[in-house]
């Protein structure tokens, strides 16, 4: 079995691998975090700890999934707030974990209702032995508007509360951002100005996943009603990657330390977050669906990827893709790529024909007798929808052609 060093330093803390549980029920208590460490996770962000005076009172049931065809958990909706265990229990668990696992990273997630709460919580978790603090500025379903994503959407409050945490503790600190805003840069910059050392993102996306059509209410149903709440899992990965790319593209944030979160299930997902600038990654939904054991393939797969890339230090992969992401107006629009159809592979389903006619430019033609597609290049715009719908991979990128009147060498285009 391959064995490569996956360790990385993030905000001055050494992680033996970049894989962390994100703050949520997967890191609710001592037993869970212990099992996660034993299974190989590099770090744990403990379930968000709130102030003693804030009563947590959860609904039941509290989850829903978005399914597509036979795939369940395309996305996951939850209505949970922060830790249900008492402050004392949580602090005792943190202390015990740090004593028993001194070399694993323990991150305390905290959330206050006012400046004093943030100061106090920061002090308490540092005293309990946490290595790092994550500020939850982003839960979208808190029962108080002084908490969660309402705070994270307000840069002023972000800055104020970050400063409060820094007054309470000298630990390295990341502010966890909400995606329920148009632009994450102002909130991130305000958090940094308040003293945050890095950014964790994303928290969940506000959502209604499904409705009960008979009762005419969203799911899950809580005594006949439901509520908008946070969405996570594979479906949010593109949204998370987008925010991370935008942060790293902002002026002054090119080297922003990031802990990436959102829809990570495989080593490939993790590698994407790393290439866009995440030094560590965090996971919840995939663990809720499959268990801590998924880290085994994430670690092993990432080691193989590093070996393939000829990289010995994970740090060398961080952010490598950022400069390849450009604003839409800067892309090369001078050429198009025609589809190439491999008729030996084609099984004659006609899906490319349907999609091109109904969803593209009516360039794919269909031979009724032979049950075979044919691409009419006069009409083809090279969108490659046909390749995406082909069930057997019979359509690939073919001839590259400059658009009429454009300069350039087709063979030099990186497609």
């Amino acid at each position, binding site marked *: *079995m*391959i064995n490569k060093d996956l360790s990385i330093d993030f905000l001055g803390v050494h992680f033996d691998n970049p894989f962390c549980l994100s703050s949520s029920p997967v890191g609710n208590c001592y037993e869970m975090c212990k099992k996660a460490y034993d299974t190989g996770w590099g770090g744990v962000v403990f379930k968000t700890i709130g102030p003693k005076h804030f009563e947590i009172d959860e609904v039941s049931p509290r989850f829903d999934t978005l399914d597509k065809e036979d*795939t369940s958990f395309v996305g996951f909706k939850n209505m949970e707030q922060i830790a249900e265990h008492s402050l004392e229990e949580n602090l005792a668990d943190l202390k015990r974990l740090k004593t028993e696992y001194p070399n694993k990273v323990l991150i305390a997630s905290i959330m206050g209702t006012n400046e004093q709460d943030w100061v106090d919580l920061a002090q308490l978790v540092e005293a309990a032995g946490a290595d790092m603090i994550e500020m939850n500025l982003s839960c979208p379903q808190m029962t108080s508007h002084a908490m969660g994503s309402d705070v994270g959407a307000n840069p002023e409050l972000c800055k104020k509360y970050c400063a409060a945490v820094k007054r309470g503790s000298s630990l390295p600190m990341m502010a966890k951002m909400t995606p329920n805003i148009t632009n994450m840069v102002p909130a991130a910059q305000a958090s940094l100005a308040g003293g945050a050392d890095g950014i964790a993102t994303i928290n969940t996306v506000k959502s209604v996943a499904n409705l009960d059509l008979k009762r005419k209410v969203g799911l899950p149903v809580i005594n006949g009603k439901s509520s908008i709440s946070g969405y996570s899992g594979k479906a949010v990965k593109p949204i998370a990657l987008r925010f991370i790319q935008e942060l790293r593209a902002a002026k002054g944030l090119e080297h922003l330390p990031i802990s990436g979160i959102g829809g990570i299930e*495989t080593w490939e997902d993790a590698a994407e977050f790393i290439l866009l600038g995440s030094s560590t990654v965090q996971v919840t939904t995939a663990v809720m669906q*499959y268990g801590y*054991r998924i880290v085994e*393939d994430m670690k*092993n*797969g990432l080691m193989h990827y590093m070996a393939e890339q000829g990289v010995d230090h994970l740090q060398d992969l961080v952010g490598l893709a950022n400069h390849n992401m450009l604003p839409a107006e800067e892309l090369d629009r001078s050429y198009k790529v025609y589809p190439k159809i491999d008729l030996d592979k084609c099984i004659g389903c006609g899906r490319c024909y349907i999609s091109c006619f109904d969803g593209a430019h009516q360039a794919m033609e269909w031979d009724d007798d032979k049950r075979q597609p044919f691409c009419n290049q006069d009409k083809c715009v090279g969108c490659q929808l046909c390749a995406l719908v082909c069930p*057997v991979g019979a359509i690939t990128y073919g001839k590259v052609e400059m658009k009429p009147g454009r300069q350039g060498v087709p063979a030099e285009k990186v497609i």
Partner: protein
Amino acid sequence: MKYMKEAEPSYTLSTVMEEAARCLLCHDAPCSKMCPAKTDPARFIRSVRFRNFKGAAETIRENNAMGAICARVCPTERYCELGCTRSGIDKPIDIGGIQRFVTDFEQQAQMDILHKGKPNGMKVAIVGSGPSGLQTAVTLLELGYAVDIYEKNAKAGGYLTYGIPEYRLPTDIVDFEIKRITNMGAEIKYNTTIGEDITMAQLKQNYQAVVLAIGSREAKSLPLFEGNPYMETAVSFLARAKMHHGQLELPDNVLVIGGGDVAMDVATTLKRLDVKHVTDVVYEEFNEFKASQKELLGTQAHGVTIIDGYVPTAADGKKVTFKHRHIDSQLVIEADKIILAVGQKANAAGLGLQLNHDEVPFTGYQAAPQVFVTGDIAQGDKTVVWSVKRGKEVATEIDQVLGGNQHD
């Protein structure tokens, strides 16, 4: 030619993901508990599921040096797939198929997973290069032993090379698996029969331990057919078919006698070589058949006429008379060739080994000081995956007896 083409189609990246997605990722996966060689299907299917194909290949290869072979020939319906929880919904996961995809990927990606351990200065001789001898060699090499394999034949692999037909197990695949093992450092000495060319005493003098992995290399016969010029044994016929890439002169009408998997292989091979009339007469009735359901159905699908419940009572050249075992019925079949598939037996001449019905009369692996047995001549199932299991186990036992690297 149909004989040379692998019968089962292989998965593509998208169809293997579909099949892996059917896996329920059970908590206490029965499939892994039921693989005799501990190949750990639950673990490698999970790796496929999470797109870690290289990790999947590592799991298979490290647990089973015959991974690509077992993927093709394991009677999975008796082992891993028998336990599959998915049967509670519809049908088991095609574990063999997924294993084949992964080991094919391993080969294409030129992965080099097995490595020799730190040399411990000790040498072991293995007699026989069938799957059990090969697996024993791998585990011993990993533990730091030097290994020489003595093989009577001109090619290594035992029944993998000389028995299981090409359409079920391509020679390329077997050769590739063997090459991994010689690359690791095992030396194979061909055309050398222990007990004839070299004595056991010589081996014991030159090696710290000797492992007998001799399998059941000879065919059983029936007295009725002694000296019959139209008769050939199953293993002789299958070996000829494989060595000649299916280029054999065969008549249009062949009679097969026997009802095990080997008989099914013979009958199906004949059909794949375009023999028009293939009749298989079987001692057992269908409800007591020895051949696996899959092999039987495959043979029937090829158009072989199978007659169950009859014993041969007389043979006169091409003409064989059978009687039913329970009813008063007689059958006379005249064929231009008769192939006997009535079992194989071990030949331990000159090896100083006591066998009882082609098996050692004891459980475990040590036969005498310095002498160990493994493979088909040890007790238990006579399959490739059991040979792998016994290869791993005998190597571990030898290491315990010899002390291995424990003094470092």
